[in-house]
Structure formats: C-alpha cells, structure tokens
C-alpha cells in the first residue's frame, strides 16, 4: 500500500481547525445545559473565524480579515448575548442564571447518536471525494469536512428533542455553510457576505422569539408535545 504524502504545514493546520469545527458539532450532541450548547456554538464560530484569518494570511485576501472580524463579533459575541437575553427565564429554576437543563433530550442514546453521525459524516466525506471540486484556497479535505458538518447538523436537529438544541443545530448548519463558502467561495463580494451575516442576525432574533412563544405555552423547552397536528 502506498503511503499518503505529507501535507504542507498550512494544509495540515487548516485541516486541523476544520476538524475542530466538526468535533464541536459532535460535542453538541452531548450538552446537558443550554448555556454549554451556546458556548460550544460560540467556540465553533471562533474556530471558523480563525480559519478565515489563516486563509487571509496565507492567500493574501485582505477582505477576509474584515469578514473574519465581523463574523467573530456577530457569532461569538452578539448571538450568544442575544440568545441569553431572549431565553432568560426559560429555566426550571429560573432566576439570574436561568439556563435550562436540556439533558437527555435525544431520541437515541448518545453513543448510538454518535455512531449514526459518524456514518452520516462518512457519507459526506466520500461523496465530496467523488466530486471533482478543487478549491483555490484550502485543501479538499476542508470541503469534505464542511459538508460533513452540515450533515451532522441535520442529525443534531433531528435527534435532539428540545427547541433550543434544534435552533442551535440550525445556527451550526449556517456555520457549516459559511465554512463551505470559505473553502469554495472565498472571493464572494464583501457586500453579499455582509448580507448573509445580517440575515443570520434577523434569524437569531426570530428563533429566539419563537422559542419564547413555545416556552410560554409548553412551560418547557421539550418538543414532546408538538404532535397535535397530523394528517
């Protein structure tokens, strides 16, 4: 069997950061507190900003610095603060630290979920490998990882049975797609990227409001009762 050639330090480093994003996504399966779930999302967004800075430095794309800073400010700072404000008081023992316990809200046990997600991520890896899409700025492994993160985000939204995890699953899906955009569409005009970020802000507000509506009616963040509309 032939050995796999060593990548350059840049490729290796970039791939490691991308793998970190994927591991953060897997980590979201396990979180028991809403606060930890949001922090993991902030960490994932920070990793993506770091990768954008690495790409900007190595490939001489100065616009990416600004974009990385903007998306870090939005996704690492503003979105967690917004979510905290909007979801204040949805905890069981709500008070100053009304961070809800969302533990054990999965349809499958954690180990089974991880195995399922590994299978889904494998599908993502191998299907991207079969496509002939080569990125000018990052190695193809990063594209495969970003598609896998998107697929695992879908698994997260399906498996976890509380609205907060589902919302954060959607935000991490958006993270995965911005990672894909970083790999494949690094030259996208700045104004369009800003439009995407602004749109994310609006979406976060709306999701937060709808979670409040849900909590107001159901007194919990669980989706177990959302079964009345059928047929």
């Amino acid at each position, binding site marked *: 069997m032939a050995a796999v050639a060593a990548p350059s330090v840049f490729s290796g480093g970039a791939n490691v950061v991308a793998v970190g994003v994927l591991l953060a996504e897997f980590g979201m399966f396990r979180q028991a507190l809403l606060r930890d779930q949001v922090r993991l999302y902030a960490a994932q967004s920070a990793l993506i900003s770091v990768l954008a800075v690495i790409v900007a430095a190595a490939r001489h794309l100065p616009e990416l610095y600004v974009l990385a800073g903007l998306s870090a400010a939005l996704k690492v700072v503003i979105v967690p603060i917004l979510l905290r404000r909007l979801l204040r008081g949805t905890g069981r023992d709500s008070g100053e630290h009304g961070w809800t316990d969302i533990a054990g809200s999965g349809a499958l046990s954690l180990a089974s979920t991880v195995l399922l997600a590994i299978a889904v991520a494998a599908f993502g890896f191998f299907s991207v490998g079969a*496509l002939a899409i080569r990125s*000018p700025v990052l190695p193809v492994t990063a594209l495969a990882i970003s598609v896998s993160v998107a697929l695992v985000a879908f698994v997260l939204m399906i498996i976890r049975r509380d609205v907060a995890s589902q919302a954060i699953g959607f935000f991490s899906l958006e993270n995965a797609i911005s990672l894909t955009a970083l790999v494949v569409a690094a030259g*996208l005009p700045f104004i369009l990227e800003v439009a995407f970020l602004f749109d994310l802000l609006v979406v976060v507000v709306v999701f937060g409001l709808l979670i409040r509506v849900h909590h107001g009616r159901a007194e919990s963040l669980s989706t177990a009762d959302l079964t009345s*509309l059928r047929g």
Partner: protein
Amino acid sequence: MLVVIVALLVVPAAAALICLRAPAAAAQAVTAASGVACFGLVLALVPAASRRDLNYLSYLRVDAISVVFLLATGFLYACVAVYCVGYLARARSDPGFSAHSRRFYAGLNLFAWAMLAAPMMSSLALLWVAVEVTTVISALLIAIEDTDGAAEAAWKYVLIASAGLGLALLATVFAYYAGAQVLGQSYNLDFGPLLQVSGQLPHTPVRLAFGLAVLGFGTKMGLVPVHTWLPDAHSEAPTPVSALLSGSLLAVSFYAILRYYQVATAALGPRFPRDVLLVFGVASLLLAALYLLEQRDVKRMLAYSSIEHMGILAIGVSFGAPIALAGVLLHVLAHAAAKGNAFMGAGVIVTKFATKRISQVSGGLDLLPWSGPLFLLSVLALGAMPPFGIFRSEFEIVAGGLASGGNIASAILIVLVTLAFLGLVATTNRMLLMPRAAQVPEPKESVQ
C-alpha cells in the same frame, strides 16, 4: 421604470414602519392603500418588462418571468390588505386589539415587501436572502395567532423551512463556484452574466447546485418529501396570512427554482433538470391527491391543494415544451387568484361556523349568500373547471407534455388531478350544499 421599481421596494416597507406606530384604523387604511398602490405599480411595470430585461443599480433586475411573480404577489397583497379590514374587525372588542393589529399589519406589510423584493433581485445571493427574510417574517405572522396549534405550526415551519434554505444557501455557494470558474473570483452571483456563460460552466458544481436548489427551495415551495410543514403552517395561520403564503410565497420559492433551472438547462442540457423536477412534481401531486381524499379540516384541505398545484408546476416545467412553460406561468397567476379567493372564503366559513372541522360545517350556501357561492366558485377553479384560468393552464401543460413525448407523465397528471378534484368537491359539497342538520351549534349571525 426605475422609479416604479424603487417605489415597489419603498412603499410596503414604509407602510410597515407607519403601521408600527399609527392607531389601528390608520394602520388598516395605510395597509390597504399600500396593497392597492403596489398592485398598480406592478401593472405599470408589465409593458416595459415584457419587452426587455430591466437592469438598474446593478442589483435590481426585472424581466418577463419576474413580472409574472410580481403580479401574483401584488394582486394578492391588494386583495388581502382589503380583506384584513373585515377579518380583524371581528376581534375589535378584545383587549390588546390595537397592539395586536398594529403588529399584524406591520408584519403583513413587511411580508409583502420581502415577497415583492425577491423577484426583483438580480443576484442569486440576494434572492436567497429575500426568501430567508420571507420565511422568518411569515413564521412570526403564523405565531401571532394565540393558539397551541399556531405555536407548534410556526416552530415546525421556521425550523424545516430554514433548514431547507440552508441547503439552498449551499446551492448558492456552489453556483458561485461554478460561475467563478468562468467569470473570475469577484463574481457576485449576478443572474444575467451567469446565464450568458452557462455553456462554459463546469458540470459537476452546476448539477450539485441545481439538485440542492430544488431540494432547498423546494422545501419552501412544498415539494414532497420536504413539504411536512406546509399543511400545519397554512392551516394554523390567520386567514390573510394563509392566502399570501399559499398564493404568493410558494410562487416566489418556485421563482427561485426556475432561475436555477434556467442556468442548469443551459449548462447541462435539458435531461437532468427535467428528470429531477418530474420526480419531485409527481411525488407532490400523488401525495397531495391522496391526502385530499381524507381531509377533516377545511384550511388543511386547501393547503394540500397548494401542494398539488406546486407539483403540477414542477411537472409542467419538466415537460419543457414552450406551450407547457406558458401554461406554468399562467398557472402561477391563476393559482394565486383562486387560492387567495378560496382561503378568504374559508376564513369567512371558519368565522361563521366557529370551527375548521368540515364535519361540523353544513348548509353553507344558505347561511352565506355571498361568500358561499364565491367559495364554491374558487374551489371549482382550483379543481381546474372551465372557464377559470387553471383549466386553461393545465390544458396547456398537458398539451405541452403530449407534444414533448411525456405521454405517461401527462396521463398520470390527468388521473391525479381528477383524484384531487374528487377530494376537493366532496368536502365542499359537504360544507356548502348539504342542508343544515338540527343538532349542529348555531352559527354567528353577523357574517354574510
């Protein structure tokens, strides 16, 4: 024409801002005026746009296809804005009415603004942003109704539709990648240039982009199997919002798919895009026709009828013949009118009988001398009876199908449309034509 386009963007947004502050009666009047004005502006746009493509300010573009969808949205916006006057009046005595109606009108105007902006965007990226904005605004409008069903429907809708739009964003990214190979790295996803160079685009990203776009925007359009939010959202929303959702929003999502279809057909040839649309179209039509046979809720029935018609649109595009495509565009307009009318009639029925359940509604024609016959006519229109527009558009679609050799698909289309007609007419018969039974609760007197 630039003035008209800019006015189309400014008027609904300004109306929304005014409605946030003004008293209820003023908000009502402003919304109605805005709706009628926008419809007038779109009509003014029709002659110019049908002759040539209009490109302004490098981010606005109106061509003949956009104007069809603008017409659908503009017409329904005008009708719904006027309908709201009577619809919200029944709750006038509730506490918090003025705040509720202000929010409602502001949301309605914003919703119409986003739906009017989407077909006018020249960049595929901004088109995606506009569709995403329509999703979140309509989710809030659904949740404005204070019932358990509305809360559940709103959450399901926003989650599933946003996830689908996530896939559509992935499609946009791959479309950029394909375009950047030919047009350079600073390509801004402008549709016109992309269509011009589509012969040189690499095949794999375009195929990926089209597949993801159909799946992603198809989630918003109501294509099976990603339609699961639609019956809940359209039936639990307030009636004016349901009318706009079914008549205009599904059409705007279809508009996005049509743009990707244009690029894909030019780049890959007709085979692959048409096969994809045919599969989704037939699945939607089949499922909707089957579900229509056993509906218990009048607004849910109309929602499944929307799925059916979206399936017909997809099948029509997949036939590819010019007459089929003409039928598709006519179908968008005719469906918007008929579905809007049907939902508004259903709203009156629900208000009159205080229930959405079909089994508890009977004797409608006797008790609703104006709304009853109008609702009957709109259901017949949805069932493709002549002389309504849907009859002609479906006729053209089938003719196109037979002309392009899709005999089996045309046959399936006719059979399933007949099945859907059966479902629609059976329930309408139950509601309107059967005489009133004695033990059913008395309906409200004030509604005609």
